[in-house]
């Protein structure tokens, strides 16, 4: 039975010349898990928000959205609030109250549910989601993963029939994200809840979905089962976001069923490419580099009585190198970056930049043509209402003469293709655009070393590819780049060297090939798929390259 029907839906934002949505026809059955994917700006978020009248964007709408046979505009408000649950992208922005228990009760309070019933429903949800351990905590003290779980739970207390999620896991680290998706799957399987999920991290989600909607420029490109969509997607730019098994399958001309998971991908290779077992993907040779930044025996803790966050860190970074530091959540990676950037002062150990101690760079000279840090959230980088004004403020503060401002800004902006963004408000930009502008701002200080904290957080596959390209380009200019990241695929594709951070220091490091093929869990999906057959291949392209070579 259809729970949701979308008929000829078109939508145009006020003052936009192009339709954001164009002739959408979809019907969703009760209990289905529907995944909506597409490049940034393809209209997937607009579509999702239109489904729930309270949060629908303003604009011209034609066509119909029927929920349970009733058009969304005439749907009873109480029913809509109750039965259509919505969870958005940013975990922080959706939390309303200061305590976990109050947040859980908020939706029921609004519906006017009586006290004892609230108590039992909240209690039930808290135990279902495993929230009982932090039920009395402040919402502010939670990790991002916990916050997002709380957002989901506080929507679930009103017992919705359909759950709308807008990139809920994009701001989470991979482990928290996988947990979140697993919870969604559980809700779908155990409670029969209909789920409509907009997502661009597809590795974990594709195998779970019943139906996939692939969108492009406001139109539905495909609406079908995951395997069929995967096959149809071959050659489409969206393909780069698909699960690794699919990408490997699509790059090889084998007529077989499309694999979705790591297990299926591995079986697929075993079946079709057993003859190349033992093939070796040759490692990139590492160039000897002169050391530019060196940390020796660095120890740091936030407070006297707290344990060390960084203890005995030794690290050497070569000039012109791209180094990725990987590690679990809360392991101290970001702190390490802050220490290297001179924001946090270690109580023991030394950091040398070009042979000189960083503590000896006085009065901000450390940040003049030496190093610069791009924080996790690019929003924190901007302090003015326009991107170009923001850039000028930085140049002024660093003592660049006014006559040079324009030429400097234009040179950087042209290179990154952000000339059209210069007159915009930074907050009006998409995440990828913000990141680009932030990176431009950072380059205006002409640093030798660029430190990046989770540069791909919230990025879709295309933006990631673009960022890899940019970093490579910066490297060819002689810049040294140190990135802290959770994104193993990104680290594998862009780095010269990867390092694993654990227990306050770096415990292993090597070229991406040796690093990732050595790890069995902390590694890319492509490596997990291919490791039995091909040695040292960690990216999808590397795997298919080896397979194709065998074909010839």
């Amino acid at each position: 039975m259809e729970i949701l029907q979308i008929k000829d839906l078109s939508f145009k934002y006020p003052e936009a010349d192009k339709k954001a949505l164009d002739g959408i026809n979809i019907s969703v059955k009760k209990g289905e898990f529907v995944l909506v994917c597409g490049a940034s700006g393809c209209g997937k978020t607009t579509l999702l928000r239109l489904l729930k009248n309270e949060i629908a964007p303003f604009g011209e709408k034609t066509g119909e959205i029927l929920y349970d046979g009733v058009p969304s505009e005439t749907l009873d408000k109480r029913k809509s609030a109750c039965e259509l649950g919505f969870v958005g992208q940013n975990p922080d922005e959706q939390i309303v109250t200061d305590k976990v228990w109050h947040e859980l009760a908020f939706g029921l309070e609004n519906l006017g549910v009586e006290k004892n019933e609230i108590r039992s429903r909240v209690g039930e949800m808290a135990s279902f989601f495993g929230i009982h351990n932090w039920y009395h905590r402040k919402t502010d003290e939670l990790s991002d993963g916990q916050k997002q779980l709380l957002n989901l739970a506080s929507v679930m207390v009103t017992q919705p029939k359909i759950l709308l999620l807008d990139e809920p896991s994009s701001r989470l680290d991979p482990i928290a994200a996988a947990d979140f998706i697993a919870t969604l799957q559980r809700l779908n399987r155990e409670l029969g809840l209909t789920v409509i999920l907009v997502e661009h991290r597809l590795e974990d989600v594709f195998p779970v979905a019943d139906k996939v909607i692939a969108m492009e420029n406001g139109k539905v490109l495909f609406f079908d089962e995951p395997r069929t969509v995967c096959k149809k997607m071959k050659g489409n730019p969206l393909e780069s976001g698909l699960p690794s098994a699919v990408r490997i399958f699509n790059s090889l001309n084998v007529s077989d069923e499309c694999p979705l998971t790591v297990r299926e991908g591995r079986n697929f290779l075993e079946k079709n490419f057993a003859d190349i077992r033992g093939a070796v993907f040759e490692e990139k040779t590492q160039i000897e580099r002169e050391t530019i930044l060196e940390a020796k025996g660095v120890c740091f803790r936030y407070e006297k009585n707290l344990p060390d966050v960084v203890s005995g860190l030794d690290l050497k970074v070569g000039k012109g190198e791209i180094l990725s530091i990987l590690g679990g959540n809360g392991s101290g990676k970001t702190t390490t970056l802050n220490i290297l950037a001179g924001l946090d002062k270690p109580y023991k150990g030394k950091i040398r930049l070009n042979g000189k101690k960083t503590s000896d760079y006085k009065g901000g000279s450390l940040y003049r043509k030496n190093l610069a840090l791009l924080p996790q959230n690019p929003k924190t980088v901007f302090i003015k209402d326009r991107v170009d004004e923001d850039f000028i403020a930085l140049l002024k503060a660093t003592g660049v003469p006014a006559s040079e401002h324009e030429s400097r800004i234009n040179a950087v902006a042209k290179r990154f293709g952000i000339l059209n963004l210069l007159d915009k408000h930074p907050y009006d930009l998409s995440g990828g655009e913000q990141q680009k502008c932030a990176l431009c701002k950072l380059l205006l200080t002409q640093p030798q070393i660029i430190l990046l904290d989770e540069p791909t957080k919230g990025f879709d596959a295309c933006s990631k590819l673009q960022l890899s390209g940019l970093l490579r380009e910066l490297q060819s200019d002689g810049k040294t780049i140190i990135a802290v990241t959770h994104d193993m695929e990104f680290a594998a594709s862009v780095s010269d060297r990867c390092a694993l951070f654990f227990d306050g220091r770096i415990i292993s490091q090597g070229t991406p090939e040796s690093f990732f093929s050595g790890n069995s869990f902390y590694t890319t999906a492509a490596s997990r798929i291919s490791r039995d057959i091909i040695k040292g291949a960690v990216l999808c392209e590397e795997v298919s390259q080896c397979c194709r070579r065998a074909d010839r």
Partner: protein
Amino acid sequence: MRAFSSLHPAVSMLHFAAVVAVGMFSTNPVIEVLSLAGGALFCATLTSPEQKKKDAVFYVFMMLAVVITNPLFSHNGVTELLFINGNPITLESVIYGCYMAVTAASVMLWFKVFGEIMTSDKIVFLFGRLLPQISLVLSMAFRYVPLIKRQAVKVSRAQKAMGLYSSEKVVDRIRSAVSVISVLIGWSLENAVETAKSMKARGYGLKGKTNYSDFRFTKTDFCFVFGCLFLLVITVSGMAIGKLDFYYYPSITAVPSDIYSLICYAAYGLLAFLPFTFESGEMIRWKYYKSRI
């Protein structure tokens, strides 16, 4: 394990108001000393040993300062002890200084304890009873303050790591603070739009909103209210008929010590020591339970 804090918020509030109001309106030195002792002991059960040392030093110095400064500025009183620059230092004003020091310290201690006990959700609950709209506003405020603070730190660090206003000069620090504040306004507006959407999506604005709280009024609470009111009535009646009157100027009167006054002292003493005894009793009971684990 904090027994007193597990009482119903209205009860904690009543007790606090009773102790502090009597302590502030009465001028009787016995009442003041009882209030200070009760507050200090209760405070001691809640704080760590290190904090206790710090607090002790702070309060002693603060009290000394009040005791010393009052006679220098107030020259009321009839018993002159000595003259400084031709101004008399009187015994009465020294004693009055002591009274002020004790009162100030006791009120501060009680407020400190109150802050520990009355967590944000209790305040939200209490005000929610009076004005339901206020409770949500308060709760949102308690949520926003740390959020904005954290964002402020992030923004200023982000600027610093790009070399903007990164020197230690005062000018740079002020500039940095100004730019951070201006950007935070935009950021919080942006944030508020999303929060408003999230509220609307969850049915905020529908008719008949209820207020949920986890606080239950138990038998202990009832006993506590009854006890507090009983003790308070005795003390206040004593104050009303002048059994606790005490004057510092022009000359010090005798401390009232007839039977009625003594009963009042006992009543107020019980009231002031109630949290401490409650807490210690629980602690002992807890130790006993623990020994059986």
